[in-house]
């Protein structure tokens, strides 16, 4: 099996976080946003979730830094630009801001809200 390529940190900064287009905004205030995202079940569950009438959507509430991070994800801003924004607005060192940004984006991604995409070939 071929080894998966390891991306260098420099290439990683060129990635663009993309919003899940199916996320629906339920409520938004200055300090909080409530979003709704479709629930996906593993394929091997087959028709079981449908037969058991399992929920098809879940609500996610974002506030604080997670909300600010979500607002920065606009399908155009690269990871490097988000890191620079976080470092300057929160007075953090670059690498600390880089790791924090990755941590926040990983959390958003685990909730099905964003995905890190490579748009460098799109010009």
């Amino acid at each position: 099996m071929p080894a998966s390529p390891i991306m260098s940190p420099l290439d990683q900064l060129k990635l663009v976080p993309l919003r899940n287009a199916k996320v629906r905004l339920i409520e938004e205030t200055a300090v909080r946003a409530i979003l709704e995202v479709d629930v996906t079940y593993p394929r091997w569950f087959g028709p079981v979730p449908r037969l058991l009438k399992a929920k098809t959507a879940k609500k996610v509430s974002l506030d604080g830094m997670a909300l600010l991070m979500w607002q920065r994800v606009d399908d155009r801003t690269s990871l490097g630009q988000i890191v620079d924004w976080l470092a300057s607005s929160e007075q953090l060192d670059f690498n600390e801001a880089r790791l924090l940004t990755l941590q926040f984006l990983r959390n958003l991604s685990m909730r099905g809200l964003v995905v890190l995409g490579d748009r460098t070939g799109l010009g």
Partner: protein
Amino acid sequence: MTSNLAWHGFSFTLPHGWEITAYRLDPRRGEFRFHQRLIDRAQLTWVRMAGRPDIEGLARDITDRQLRSAGRDKVGAEVVKHGPWLVAHAARGEPFQALTWIAHDQRLLHWTFPAWEGDDADLPWRTLLASLVADPGDTLRWELFGTAVLLPRRFAAVEVDARPGVVRIEYADSAGVSVTVRRFGLARSLLAERQLSSWLRRSMFADKGRIDQVQETVRGGCPAVRAAFSIIGERTFDRVAWRRWPGEAWWWHDEARNRILAIEQVGPPKAPRVEFSHAG
């Protein structure tokens, strides 16, 4: 931003934008690695030795070995003296070394920089090496990852937990007194969520501390919270008898740098304590 590094009695002022990205903090043999954004800038290692080594021979030997391992022909390293430092370099663009011996501490400090670009006085490595302070005094300054504390020499670092945005470093002496310093980034977001005193209570709860008193105050012009607390003693008898050790904690919001800083001290009732009521 410029930051300081003070560890095991030696200290440096780091050039603008340099960050510590890796560390090994063994007091006998440890190291720090430094990056500026994603660019590798330097490595600092320290070794405690029984006696002063032949520093010039060591510098030449390290340079030769580095060149050999990179497949280069052996080139005699040129060694120049800058203050207490011996700087050994070979060719332009090749890694170079700076070594010094701290006699009172029997510690060899060794910087490795990735590329020799000349000897101009305004190069970052020149100002970095010139900033060395190795004070043999009774108190040591410990400064790492945005935390800073001045402690009697009997204290030593026992645990470092450095995660992005959250740093916790614990120092202890042989009498069982421990001093913990903390630094939290994203302070404005944290304090929008809950008050400083509430964060202190949560931290104490996580550390199994019992808060006896909390007082809102000011420290160095910053809004602060001071708490008296106790924990179950950590020595065998105290642990068995559930004898409690008294402690004090200061947490404050450094608004200018957007950080929450904290210093906590706890230990056996009769053990001598460090004075932390002053800002610093």
